[in-house]
């Protein structure tokens, strides 16, 4: 099978039903896409297939043939994508494990809706983060969009004594 991943063509000899996630991780050594649940619940495995965010843990690799696949490694070559930059600026990740998926979901959302509302963000960002970085994810998306969260939060940093 021929796969077009991050603008490169890869030839793989695997079972057609093997999920794209495991082809990426174990055959092509693209480890940035993560396994979290295997049942499309958590979104850690999110990649773009023809620009659409897809959960690669339940997508048979045969379905991806002939489509443009982008993984976190291909989002930018130097972490310069606006979403990646906003993630750094807002210090979003804690453990970071889910963040490849979060970033791919956010990038797809912003691509489709450059100025998403909070409702748009709620609908698009169903990925699970156990560390609880959701507030910063929302802030970072709004920052890229140049919009303001309706659910604003403040941080009072009293002086260190």
């Amino acid at each position: 099978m021929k796969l077009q991943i991050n603008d490169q063509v890869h030839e793989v000899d695997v079972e057609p039903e093997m999920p794209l996630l495991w082809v990426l991780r174990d055959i092509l050594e693209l480890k940035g896409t993560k396994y979290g649940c295997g049942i499309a619940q958590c979104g850690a495995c999110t990649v773009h297939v023809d620009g659409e965010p897809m959960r690669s843990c339940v997508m048979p690799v045969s379905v991806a043939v002939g489509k443009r696949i982008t993984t976190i490694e291909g989002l930018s070559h130097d972490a310069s994508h606006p979403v990646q930059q906003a993630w750094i600026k807002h210090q979003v990740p804690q453990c970071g494990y889910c963040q490849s998926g979060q970033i791919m979901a956010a990038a797809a959302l912003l691509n489709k809706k450059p100025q998403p509302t909070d409702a748009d963000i709620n609908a698009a960002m169903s990925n699970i983060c156990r560390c609880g970085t959701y507030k910063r994810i929302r802030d970072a998306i709004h920052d890229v969009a140049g919009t303001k969260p309706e659910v604003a939060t403040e941080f009072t940093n009293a002086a260190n004594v």
Partner: protein
Amino acid sequence: MNTFNNLSRRNFLFASAAVGGGLALGFALPVGKVDAATVNSAKRINIWVEVAPDNTVTIKYARSEMGQGSLTSAPQLVADELDANWDQVRIAYVDVHEHLLMNKAWGSMQTVGSQTIRNSQDYLRKAGATARAMLVAAAAQSWKVPASEITVQNGIVAHAASKKQSGFGALAALAATMPVPKDVTVKDPKNWHIIGQSMPRIDIPASVNGAQVYGVDVSLPGMVYAAIAQCPVFGGKARSFDAASARERRGVIDVFTIDGDTSVVVVADNWWRAKQALAEVQIEWDDNGNGKVDDASIRKFFRDGLAAKDADPLRNNKGDVDGALKGATKVLEAEYFTPYLSHSPMEPMGATVQIGADQVQVWASTQAADGLAGEVAGALQRKPEEIYVHRVQAGGGFGRRGGGDYARQAALIAAKLPQGTPVKLLWTREEDTQHGMYRPLAMYKLQAGLDANNTIVGWRTRIASGSLMSQRIGAPLGKNGDAMATEGFSRLPYNVANQDHSYIERRTHIPIGFWRTVGWSQTPFAREQFIDELAQAAGEDPLQFRLRHMAQDELSRHILEVAANAADWKTPPAKGVFRGIATTEPYDSFTAAVVELSVNDAGVIRIHRIVQAINSGHVVNPNNVEAQLQGATVWALTAAMWGEIGIEQGRVKQSNFHDYRVLRLSEMPKVEVVLAPTGGFWGGVGEPGQAPLLPAFCNALAAATGKRYRTLPLRQYGLTLA
């Protein structure tokens, strides 16, 4: 808030491979390009500080990083005392093997109990001050000037009178030979310039482009993959298995049992093939007699514990509670229940092991790297010094990775393969959910009396729960009950003249472990709701009722007032909106929370506002503390609404995120974090945020609905979160 634009990864150097003696086997460490020449020419001033000729300073980090941020904040302690230039600071994990050979010279590697900063701040600050003094001594000797006239600022050592100055690099070789000062003075906090600053976390850049390497991402030449099925009933084992068709599948290398037949393993040329083949293996399990245990039998066993005669009285008991309750005007009694919970970090359990003739290489996400080496050594009957544990970022820990069961299994699997074969074990999410080390189930029976002035005159607590000390650690329980299970009751912040608290262990076959915030994740659910029940009986504002009973607890009063003021407690909320408040004293910190919510007729909860306040004494990295409290909010609300591991036929009912529900972004409420450090002490920050939030939330719910919610999770009451 600080901004973090234009960050590079310059601070993030993983030099353990080079410094530790070339043990990395060609394994590409996650980020930061290590210039081997620089590393090898670096001078070790002391075990924490290495200085290279180009003035870069490598600060060693002994604990693990799993998202809590101390990979950045702990080195801030060293860098500040060193008066280093933060831009020249690199951070490297301590090599675990060297640590073990040097009799654990770097202190504890345990990344547990919100203790990295508070337990190491003293020796880390002194390490920085000592290295600084040795650089000064070197400068004094080479410039022939008195050390007392030398200043160090932002990585520059200078002598004003002679106009001499130098970076650290040129002085490092001589400094390393200087006598180690016996007593160094650390700075007055008012002179801190790196401590207390929101330094960007050095691991974050690698987390946004897929470069961060976690335990499950390790890849070695010739590596094979293992999938595992552990006996669904804890303590049971495989009586027999039929792997005939599984062995026929593409890529399958072997099928066998490990660890006294407790698990069946398939090894294949990639993990998906191993997992698919494992599903075809027909396994007959022996449940070891626990196949009939279920939620009802467990709850009966615990409830019986609430009435048992042989409970351990706590050390803080005093006075005559029976007498006090007899004389009370009002007596209240309530039972609270908190279920088993799974950690479910996003990175499932797994480890990679390669066994050589005289070396065993282990790569794993862990919260206790040195302990992991011991577990692997024990499993393989090897000497601990033959074990080389390589650390990587952990995809969440929350207490689950304090135990090394998964690395132990990977080692046992590697031992069954031809010597030298690297094998990566990965659990499915289902294995992770069903083979956790669960937050202990606990029941609380509380009784208290108010006198005519509505003062609490007597308080009785009975706790029945699993004991982490006895069941998890294997330490005998003293006369004072289990320290973790009784947190919050073993020292009430409220003045009550007559107190009688007792604890009884309830041990089942369900494995238990340290779950983020441990006892403090559950005892405040009972204590801080019961205080509200007493306030209600007294007809008094719950804040005032608390403050009136904590006359001598200045820091508890302080944090309650900070939270209340930030939440405008004195201004009544809008019509239909209700508030709850709670306070706790976890991990040497003081935390209080206020939750504002409304509930509609359909039981849909809308959270309007959350205020989280913490006094951790000092704050090393404010932005990171804020992140920890935001995360703790998610953790607490998840436990409140949906968190439950149930048992049927001796095994866990839940299996994945569809039935072990966690909070998602759309449900994330508005959270305001207030840092209110008073100085004078060092408290933890990773876990304390959760402690007051759960009861504050439940108190707000009680205010809104007129009902008390004493059994978790709240889903069972028909409540949902908007």
